[in-house]
């Protein structure tokens, strides 16, 4: 049994956790629920020995423990599977499982045979039929996760913490993961499960623990609570997400793409996208849905000029053909792309909120064509910080110190600053809390009302249905359906997203 007593933690003077008290029930799946910034990840990092400076006590099986590093936590039986998987891509499965705790022969040499055998056993227990000599880079994300779990199993962890394990895997892989979680639970292990996807939690979790603003709010049995009650505990208010379809087909055409195709960069004769054509009207929100690997992200990347060598097809903006070979061309054509991964592709994390917002429009902030005007830049940044409600201690704070939702708003701000006609959004609400989500939906609707055309790629059906005016479905690189929102149902969309074979 793992217990936290009065845990508090500060980051450079900012309180991240205050007096957290909670108990993890052994042999159960304990869901930790809370918006981004609620303190979930920080707490897990304390449990697993990543953060060593904190106030309060951690009690494991009745004993006070204080880990000096992750290794000590692991030896005490606590393993964490991070959101960003911590595997070495060019080492094999076996080498990764035994990384840092290699088995050796009496002579001190690596005992490869024994390690390989044990790795095979572990993979077998996880119903994974893969050669343990396979390099991690060759595995799918879901399989990589299984390798992480295998690592945890090898260390014989009694507590396994999973941080957003389903954020990057397909529904089928989610099912497999759940099977494994149930198996681990039946072996008496304690699972700590962190996820934003409430539906999932109701499927897999036994207990819930709600954190809000760094404090523990409530805990109880999953069976005894409804989804709405849970959301209320997380946000402190009720959430309504109405479906409002509107017909904009008679509005003027803003963007037309014809026959977009994309060759696979490495595999000859393989197409990532083939012959995709569609139009986007002024004021329309076009939702694009597809399963993992269907080519959703790649489609947006083609529009934004990120595949100059392999993409084919024509793009018309306001009826005029535009050659888009680089992001510079795309921006000139009135396009903007909010990419899928804000940390890797959207932000310069070390830099201030202000310079992140102004980066796309610096040429407009110059005096005499040379010197950046601090006044103009401050005005621009302040305007977006207030209009988008970006919560930051100051415009000069580094972007890395903000929560996911606020970081996403910075990326939106820097693109809105370019006054685009067409806004491309790739998973705009991935990994951000419910409040920020609904704010972003509201913003999208306002922008559309003002005449902007929006294309939103999303892997979450409820989101697609809630926000879009029309839904495009792609499957294995081909456009399989264009559905008006009035006719769109989850079943209809999924039917078109799944390959018929």
């Amino acid at each position, binding site marked *: 049994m793992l217990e936290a007593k009065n845990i508090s933690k*500060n*980051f*450079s*003077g*900012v309180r991240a956790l205050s007096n957290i008290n909670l108990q993890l029930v052994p042999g159960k799946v304990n869901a930790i629920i809370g918006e981004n910034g609620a303190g979930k990840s920080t707490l897990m990092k304390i449990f697993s020995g990543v953060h060593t400076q904190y106030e309060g006590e951690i009690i494991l099986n009745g004993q006070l423990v204080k880990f000096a590093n992750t290794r000590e936590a692991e030896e005490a039986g606590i393993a964490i599977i991070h959101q960003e998987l911590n595997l070495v891509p060019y080492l094999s499965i076996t080498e990764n499982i035994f990384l840092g705790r290699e088995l050796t022969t009496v002579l001190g040499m690596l005992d490869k045979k024994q390690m390989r055998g044990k790795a095979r056993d572990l993979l077998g227990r996880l119903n994974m039929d893969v050669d343990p000599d396979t390099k991690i880079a060759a595995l799918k994300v879901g399989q990589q996760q299984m390798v992480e779990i295998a690592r945890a199993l090898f260390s014989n962890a009694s507590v396994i913490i999973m941080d957003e394990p389903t954020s990057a895997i397909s529904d089928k892989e989610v099912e497999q993961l759940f099977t494994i979680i149930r198996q681990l639970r039946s072996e008496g292990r304690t699972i700590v499960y962190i996820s934003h996807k409430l539906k999932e939690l109701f499927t897999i979790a036994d207990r819930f623990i709600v954190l809000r603003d760094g404090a523990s709010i409530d805990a109880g049995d999953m069976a005894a609570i409804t989804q709405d009650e849970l959301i209320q505990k997380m946000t402190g208010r009720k959430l309504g997400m109405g479906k409002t379809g509107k017909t904009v087909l008679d509005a003027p055409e803003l963007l037309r793409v014809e026959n977009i195709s994309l060759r696979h960069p490495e595999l000859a004769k393989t197409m990532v996208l083939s012959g995709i054509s569609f139009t986007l009207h002024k004021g329309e929100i076009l939702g694009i849905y597809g399963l993992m690997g269907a080519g959703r992200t790649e489609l947006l990347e083609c529009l*934004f000029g*990120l595949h100059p060598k392999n993409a084919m097809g024509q793009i018309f903006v306001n009826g005029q053909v535009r050659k888009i070979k680089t*992001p*510079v061309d*795309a*921006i000139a054509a009135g396009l903007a*792309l909010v*990419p899928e991964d804000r940390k*890797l*592709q*959207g*932000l*310069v*994390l*070390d*830099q201030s909120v202000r*310079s992140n917002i*102004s*980066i*796309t429009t*610096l*040429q407009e902030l*110059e005096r005499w064509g*040379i*010197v*950046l005007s601090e006044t103009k830049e401050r005005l621009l940044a302040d305007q977006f910080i207030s209009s988008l409600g970006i919560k930051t*201690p100051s415009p000069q704070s580094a972007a890395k110190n903000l929560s996911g939702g606020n970081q996403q708003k910075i990326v939106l701000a*820097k693109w809105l600053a370019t006054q685009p006609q067409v806004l491309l959004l790739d998973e705009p609400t991935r990994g951000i809390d419910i409040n920020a989500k609904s704010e972003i939906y509201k913003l999208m609707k306002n922008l559309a009302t003002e005449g902007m055309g929006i294309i939103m790629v999303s892997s979450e059906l409820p989101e697609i249905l809630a926000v879009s005016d029309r839904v495009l479905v792609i499957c294995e690189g081909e456009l399989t359906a264009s559905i008006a929102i009035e006719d769109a149902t989850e079943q209809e969309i999924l039917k078109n997203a799944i390959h018929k074979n």
Partner: protein
Amino acid sequence: MTAIAPTYRANIKRFQSVIALLVLCIVLAVLTDKFFTAANGLNVLRQVAVNACIATGMTLIVLTGGIDLSVGSVLALCGAITAGLLKYGWSIPSADLFIGFTILGAVLVAILAGALLGFINGITITAFKVPPFVATLAMLTIARGFTMLYTGGHPVSNLGEGFARIGTGSWLGIPVPVWIAAAVVSLAVFITKKTRLGRYIYAIGGNETAARLSGIRINRVKLFVYGIGGALAAVGGIIVTSRLDSAQPNAGISYELDAIAAVVIGGTSLNGGRGSVWGTVIGAVIIGVLNNGLVLLNVSPFWQQVVKGGVILLAVIIDKIGDRRNE
């Protein structure tokens, strides 16, 4: 109070190299009679000037996440070009053509040559995706080879009194090389702090993908910084050649290491995106003061190297400790 603490700490971090420099100066002033004199001060600054020029260019490059190992050789080649043009002019026998050079002409050609060499580095790095370490390592050897070919391995000396003034003269009591370095540093500070280009340099080093997606022309910025890096190495080469009144084919060997050391001691991250030209200037002065002080203290040249290396390590370790506390 808790809100003030982080900024206070950040300020200490910003000034920690200045504090280190002050401590160093005080210690040397106490230990030696000669250190704290105007003559010695100017002497130190004159010696620092060349490294300050090169290290300023290096800072721009390092801020984008790159590195330039070729500056020492580029310095030598451009120094030799200046000397050769001044002394022998440029003759093309087949066309029966001879061009003589004024000091200004020779200097400009040398700076252009340096910029061109830097530009070639930039092209190898951007167009052919060669890692900067490798591309500039190759240029280090190539430029040194050309220096040997051009000079035949012999120094080119006696370049005239006018030219010698660049390295040895003074204006308003301050050595000319110090004025040159000050101009170079001011320009670089202006670029990094006040212009779009400066922002782009930081953005590319901080997150190249995000910068590219934001519509920044990454390759152009990189070509620019490597070009500037080469041009500033040439400026260094002109000063060195003028001071010695001679272009030495072996000039500038391992200068790239002093430049990188100044950048690192000045707190610029070798991963790019973090640091400043000012920091580098302080770093260069620390190295200069250290060199000077160790000589004044009669420390053997062998020990001097050990101490310099130790200081570099210490600077980076202190920097890292500061980072960790701010985590």
